[in-house]
């Protein structure tokens, strides 16, 4: 065990030493640390505002929905081969005369450390959430504990399922089907109720906040623990937390006793993870890295830097996703649900959707295809001006936003019978906001390099992007308030965003001419 502690300790020390060599980045991390402390102090003093705090049932429903999502996603993904380890661990640790259980604990500690960033995010957003959700004092610590438990338990259970599934062919399919069937059964009462009442939103909230969930193992236990943030820590919260701890320890002991069998399973999972990490670093999504590529008939015809654009379009077509992703469809579904469920003025619903999706765009840390280009030397060698290469590399992402925006706001807008000009300008705002984020990410890459820009992206998106968005949102709001003309307001926002995007392009272009800047 001491050798494993040595690796963890030295890795931490060496990472800190590396940071000390880069004072600029260190300052940013120190600022984040200070903001976290301030956030903790402020949230401690913030009382839940009566007029902002949501209905406790809505908060309960959000928690249950979140738990359902994490459990389903995490367990289904684990069947693809989850692993706590990296290839260096496989080469050095799996072959060393070390206790298998100790190695598992080591992997587990690393996994938890990887989730620190999410916890940072939670703590930074916490004062807002406290006011909005009406959390009690001390709820932040409970949420962090519940989040760690959720990640730990789903990871352990995922590994148990994966190891068991590998024993016989066909088991993976059975488990996956069972997971999806369970989710369908759990969510089935919602549409049934909605058909009866004609109110989908209310049916969803009613069901997800109902007390019946306490009879559903795991989901119900987690739901009870998370709800302690609103109801306070009582015997019920402690009891459910203890169920989860017992279940986690049982899963851990099961894996521990499997000894080297687990390593054999972990090996393939680790190789897959390594490939995924490489893919993610190179700007591809995790799903793409394990996806089979389709054969397509497509010839690159454009020349010079635009060949990069066509190459990316070819890659996108091969993944089968092309310009419409699962996210686009999910956002569209959300828009349609909002269109039917929200009792608000139609144009206001579309505006709220724009705000919500811009917020999602901001917090979802997505590596763009342009990052993949930077990992290959070809982009630097191609004889074309760097600005052209930058434009060609980012164009597919912007086109994707255009298609996504048209899909979401076009269809939802038609359903809501919003004026076509408003729809068009709102699409413009959506696309140009995406442009602002894209080119802002390139500046982050230029300032902090690949590794740190990935880590700091969420932080900067939350803080500076709010400011950036305000640059367009404030004038747009004033125009709308003064003229009651939404199209004019959105048009102004789109123009400001486009101007910002061009400004960021010029500031970040060095990344495409010098790999050392990236």
């Amino acid at each position, binding site marked *: 065990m001491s050798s494993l502690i040595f690796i963890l300790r030295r890795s931490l020390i060496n990472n800190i030493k590396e940071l000390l*060599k880069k004072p600029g980045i260190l300052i940013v991390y120190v600022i984040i640390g200070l903001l976290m402390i301030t956030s903790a102090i402020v949230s401690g003093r913030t009382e839940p505002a009566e007029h902002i705090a949501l209905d406790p049932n809505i908060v309960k429903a959000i928690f249950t929905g979140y738990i359902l999502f994490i459990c389903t996603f995490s367990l289904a993904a684990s069947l693809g081969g989850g692993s706590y380890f990296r290839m260096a661990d496989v080469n050095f640790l799996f072959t060393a005369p070390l206790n298998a259980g100790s190695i598992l604990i080591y992997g587990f500690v690393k996994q938890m450390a990887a989730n620190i960033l999410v916890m940072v995010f939670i703590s930074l957003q916490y004062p807002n959430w406290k006011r909005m959700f009406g959390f009690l004092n001390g709820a932040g610590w409970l949420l962090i504990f519940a989040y760690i438990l959720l990640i730990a338990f789903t990871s352990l259970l995922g590994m148990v399922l994966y190891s068991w599934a590998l024993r016989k062919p066909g088991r993976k399919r059975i488990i996956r089907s069972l997971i999806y069937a369970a989710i369908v059964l759990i969510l089935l009462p919602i549409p049934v109720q909605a058909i009866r009442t004609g109110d989908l939103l209310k049916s969803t909230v009613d069901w997800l906040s109902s007390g019946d969930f306490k009879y559903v193992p795991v989901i119900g236990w987690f739901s009870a623990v998370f709800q302690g943030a609103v109801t306070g820590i009582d015997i019920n919260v402690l009891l459910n937390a203890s169920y989860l701890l017992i279940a986690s320890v049982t899963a851990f002991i099961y894996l521990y006793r499997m000894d080297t069998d687990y390593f054999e399973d972990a090996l393939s999972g680790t190789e897959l993870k390594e490939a995924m990490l490489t*893919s993610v670093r190179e700007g*591809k999504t995790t799903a793409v*890295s394990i996806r089979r*590529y389709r*054969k397509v008939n497509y*010839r*690159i*015809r*454009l*020349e*010079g*830097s635009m*060949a*990069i654009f*066509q*190459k990316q379009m*070819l*890659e996108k077509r*091969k*993944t089968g996703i092309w310009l419409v992703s699962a996210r686009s469809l999910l956002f569209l579904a959300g828009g349609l649900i909002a269109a039917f469920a929200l009792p608000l003025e139609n144009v206001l619903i579309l505006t709220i959707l724009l705000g919500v999706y811009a917020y999602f765009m901001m917090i979802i840390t997505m590596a763009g295809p342009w990052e993949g280009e930077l*990992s*290959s*030397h*070809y982009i*630097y*060698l*191609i*004889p*074309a*001006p760097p600005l052209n290469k930058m434009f060609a590399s980012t164009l597919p992402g912007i086109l994707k936003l255009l298609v996504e925006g048209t899909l979401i706001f076009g269809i939802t807008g038609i359903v809501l019978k919003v004026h076509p000009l408003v729809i068009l300008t709102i699409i413009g705002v959506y696309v140009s906001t995406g442009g602002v984020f894209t080119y802002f990410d390139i500046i982050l890459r230029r300032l902090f390099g690949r590794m740190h820009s990935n880590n700091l992206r969420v932080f900067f998106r939350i803080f500076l992007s709010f400011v950036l968005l305000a640059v367009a949102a404030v004038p747009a709001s004033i125009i709308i308030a003064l003229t009651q003309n939404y199209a004019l307001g959105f048009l102004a926002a789109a123009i400001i965003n486009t101007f910002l995007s061009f400004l960021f392009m010029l500031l970040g272009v060095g990344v495409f*001419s*010098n*790999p*050392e800047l990236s």
Partner: protein
Amino acid sequence: MLKVSGVTKYYGKLLAVDEISFEINKGEIAILLGPNGAGKSTILKCIAGLLRYEGSIYIEGHLNKSIEAKRLFSYVPETPALYDALTVEEHMQFIAKAYRLKDYEEYKSEIFERFDLSDKTEKLGRELSKGMQQKLSICTSVLTRPSVILFDEPMMGLDPKAIKELKKLFLELKEAGCAVLISTHIIDSIKDIWDRIFIMHKGKIASTMDRSEVTGDNEVEERFFAVTGGTR
């Protein structure tokens, strides 16, 4: 054709390349020979415009980072970096379009044949073995018919037939008037092809050898160990 003047490169505080200057002429094969960490790859990356440096590098009179220079040179990196989702054929198509090449099909087929890639044109980049990836990386580089070509440890991972073909290719490039710069630490691999050797040690060119000056078979090896401090 390739002129490197007073190039110095630091990685943080580490001096990787120290005031290096040399020239390579048309139709010349020059070798950067040196032990691991001597700075060979760094100087190649500087020439390819992938690193910032002090000093100047010109390719046929153009600054190496200019678009004109980029049209004239090619670079084969030590580790092949291909696109996962592109087939062998599509890699060539992409390079041809990016470099605005005309009438490249015949030449492409010829180099595919030489490197045994003709029957693998529909394979994806990620499906190729490491050696095959290296072959494709070489093919994409020569497709542009460069005036200056830089090879960083080009024989790593290649099978004996491919090594033989590559050596033949070096000589053909030389005959076509191309300036070839190869970095390696394996002396035997460049035995019969070199015109000039720059022995690098601790970021400097510690010794330069000209083919016309060499008399004995083992002279390169002897000089290498004498300069770098090792023993045979």
